[in-house]
């Protein structure tokens, strides 16, 4: 016996959104607290140490800048894919979702290059306070990117069947996933500014 979860797709009149979106907003609230705590630790370590003890290598800015542009492009792609699904143009949605997933993978690839280059120079989390918090912040963010890629890939693979059966349900899922992906992108922009620019 199967049970239909109420308001998983249909918008509630009292909250103005469906339960999937509401649940995701609550999840993003907890995620904000997680990254807020880590960023607060970064601020403590950075402000609490002398400048010569907290050296960060500015030569990585080009690579990190390219990664930022890639993640921004993936955010644009996934937002356009939601709009395509809203217009019931499945093929365009699929291509754009594929671009978003590919951009996420490219981001991880470049991040891995960045890590490999650091490990090659003997720079590990235990090397310095800056590297400890750098690897923690970027590593936790990379885990979130991996999670987003897995969910988006699942939606990409199973989307056609669901689109035929219940397009509104697919739209609800893709919208929720896009919201999460945009959040991950926004977190990266904050990390980019903190770790590489400021």
């Amino acid at each position, binding site marked *: 016996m199967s049970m239909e979860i109420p308001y998983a797709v249909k918008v509630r*009149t*009292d*909250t*103005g959104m469906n339960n999937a979106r509401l649940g995701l*907003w609550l999840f993003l*609230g907890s995620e*904000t*607290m997680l*990254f*807020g*705590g880590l*960023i*607060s*630790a970064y*601020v*403590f*370590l*950075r*402000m*609490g*140490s*002398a400048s010569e003890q907290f050296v960060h290598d500015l030569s990585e800015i080009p690579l990190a800048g390219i990664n930022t542009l890639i993640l921004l492009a993936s955010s644009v792609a996934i937002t356009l894919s939601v709009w395509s699904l809203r217009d019931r143009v499945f093929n365009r949605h699929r291509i754009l979702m594929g671009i978003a997933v590919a951009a996420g993978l490219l981001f991880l690839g470049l991040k891995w290059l960045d890590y490999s280059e650091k490990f090659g120079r003997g720079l590990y989390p235990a090397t310095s306070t800056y590297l400890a918090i750098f690897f923690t912040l970027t590593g936790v963010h990379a885990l979130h990117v991996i999670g987003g890629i897995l969910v988006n890939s699942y939606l990409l693979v199973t989307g056609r069947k669901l689109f035929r059966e219940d397009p509104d349900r697919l739209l609800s899922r893709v919208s929720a996933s896009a919201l999460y992906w945009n959040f991950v992108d926004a977190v990266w922009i904050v990390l980019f500014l903190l770790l590489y620019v400021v």
Partner: protein
Amino acid sequence: MSKRIPYVLAVVFFLFIVGRTTAISCPVCFGALDDPATNGMNYAIFTLLGVTGSVLAGFVSFALRLRRLSRPVAPGKEEA
């Protein structure tokens, strides 16, 4: 046996206090206002307050939104 635990703890605490000749604390606990660690802690606290405040503001705005949206729904006319 359990009745002896407070006495044992008191003796351990007494020995801990008496046995020490110097008290050691970090600059934050000690209250060294000019120390970078104290400065860093202050900035970290304000950062976390900002993040927590933003999340709480989100919850408050959602509660206000619920109040606003629930007004037009007349009693007995809610959707099933």
